[in-house]
Each structure stands twice: as C-alpha cells, then as structure tokens.
C-alpha cells in the first residue's frame, strides 16, 4: 500500500484511529490480510471502528463492512483478536454480500 504524497489526514484510517485513541475512545482496527479472486480492496487495507460503531476506511467495496463493524465491537469488549473470512463459499458471507465473487480474510484487533 502506498501512502499519498501528503497524507490525507481527514480520511486516513490509521491517523483517525490515533486521534480516537487520544480522545480516550476504545478502538478496533481491521486489516485485510489475504485476498483471493476479485477482491475490491488490496491486502493491507484498513477499517477502523470505535465502540459506538463509527468507522472509517474500508476492507471491501462496502459489502462486508457492516459485519466487520459488529465483530469489531465484540473484539473491543473481549480484547481478543479475531480472524474473519468472507467469500462466496461461506453461507453467512454470501448473506452479507461479497457478491464480487472474491474471498477476503480480515484480521480484527483491539488497539491497546
């Protein structure tokens, strides 16, 4: 993942996560760690989530973000990282709709 010449601080998920942390919020960070087929976001992409379910960034083209956000709130509560997998082979994943036909693996962890 290439960072832009001058970071777009207002939209950069990792910069936003740091800001939330400084504001005393509980934060989870989700990262695409593997893709197969026509995945819309490259490996290394981030979605950051706070305990209220606010989020920035993306791990897909908007297909699975909802599911990742609800898992992230569990991760914030438990402090235990999770590996999520979405794809056409998975019935639940199909319901949340990675309809591009790709498969992605998303690592969700608590910040701190």
């Amino acid at each position, binding site marked *: *993942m*290439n*960072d*832009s*010449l001058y*970071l777009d601080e207002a939209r950069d998920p*990792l*910069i936003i*996560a*740091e800001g939330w*942390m400084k504001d005393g919020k509980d934060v989870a*960070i989700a*990262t695409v*760690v*593997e893709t197969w087929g026509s995945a819309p976001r*490259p*490996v*290394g992409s981030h979605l950051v989530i706070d305990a209220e379910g606010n989020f920035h960034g993306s791990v897909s083209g908007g297909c699975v973000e909802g599911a990742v956000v609800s898992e992230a709130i569990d991760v914030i509560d438990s402090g235990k*990282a999770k*590996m999520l997998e979405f794809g056409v082979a998975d019935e639940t994943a199909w319901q949340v709709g990675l309809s591009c036909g790709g498969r992605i693996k998303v*690592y969700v*962890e*608590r*910040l*701190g």
Partner: protein
Amino acid sequence: MDPYALKTLNAERRARRAAILVTDLGDGRDRIVREGDQVAGDLGAAIARAFRSGNSGSVEAEGRTFFLNAHLPQPRLVVIGAVHISQALAPMAKIAGYPVEIIDPRTAFATPDRFPDVALHAEWPEDVLKRHPLDSYTALAAVTHDPKIDDFALKAALDANCFYVGALGSRKTHAKRVERLLALGATADQIARIHAPIGLDIGAASPAEIAVAVLAQTIHAFRSRGLDAKGAVA
C-alpha cells in the same frame, strides 16, 4: 495493535519514511520495522522484499505466521526544467505512478499553458526545495542544461539521498558539472550516483523518447533500491 506501534507508524508515514508493521497473527503482538533495521532469518528476507516491492502479505517464519503491512511513501519525481522533455515526461510519469513537480524560474518556459495538470513552480529551485524538501522517495531529473538552475538542485538531491538523480547533458558537459559539484562540496561518491547522460540507453532521439528513457531509469532505480550500496544502476 500496540498504541505505541500505531503512533510510531503514523509518525514515519507523516515524515515520508518507509515502515513495516509486523504482526504475529498467532498472539497479536506487533512491532514497527524501519528501512535499514536488521532483522535476521526468513522473516528478515521477507521484510526486505516487502520494502522493495511495497506489497503487504503473510509470511511463515520460525514456525509462526506474520503479517507484514508495508507502508511506503508515494514515490515522486521532481523535474528541474519546464522544457520539451518535461512536457512528455510529466503525463507519462504520472500514469506510471510517479507524480511530477516541475521547477523552472524561467517564466517563459514554466507556463500553465505548456504544462496543464502538473504541479508547476515558476521559481528558483532554492526557494521551492526549501518549502518541499527532497527525500529518499523522491527522484530528481535536471534537464535545463543551465548550471545556474540545475546545480543547486543536483547537490540538494545528492544530500537528500534521492533514489534517482539524473542530469541532461553530454559526457563533456557532465565532466564540467562534476568540477562544479565538487566545488559546491559534493563528494566523488555522491557525484557517481548521478545518471549522466540521462536516461536508459535506448537510442532515444526525440524529447518524448528521452522522457521514456528517463522514466524507465527512474523506475529501475526505484525497484532496485537497496540492491546496490551506491544506488547506482544502469
């Protein structure tokens, strides 16, 4: 993620320095590795590859699975000289993923009309580079032929360890340039990093063909970073 790792990573990204966040997917522990840090074994080799390619991914090492998230600054190309070559180079380099800035104090050359959709500075390099410093993820091509304009920028590029430094001009022109750069305080090793005559030797004849040669040499220099202690390629 360790909050300290996140802070460090963001600080490196803001400073336009490459860093890799290494996460052990088994226990979640993570750490930041900066370019040039020594890491042993298979993990170290994978980290070196990730710095070169900029690609993130998982790697098996020491019986564990690590995720390497590579954060490389966007490489960019600064061109000294709003000349015919630059007119062809700017759009091509942008397409190839190297955004361009053009600097030329000669206001007759540096006109938005000749350079639409390019960051263009009709100022002396001394003034622009003060505001936008060069760094090791920046390439510099000096193509004005005019020592008054090119020399300061070339010396600044060598001091900033730009990943590519090229200068237009024949071998004879370059020999004189070497004398001037030595007088400015550049070392012989630094000067040896300058690609002159500029561009890969593809027999380029027209300004647009020279632009292709310069862009190819820039890409080669970027993709072979760290393979050669002096950074000299081609």
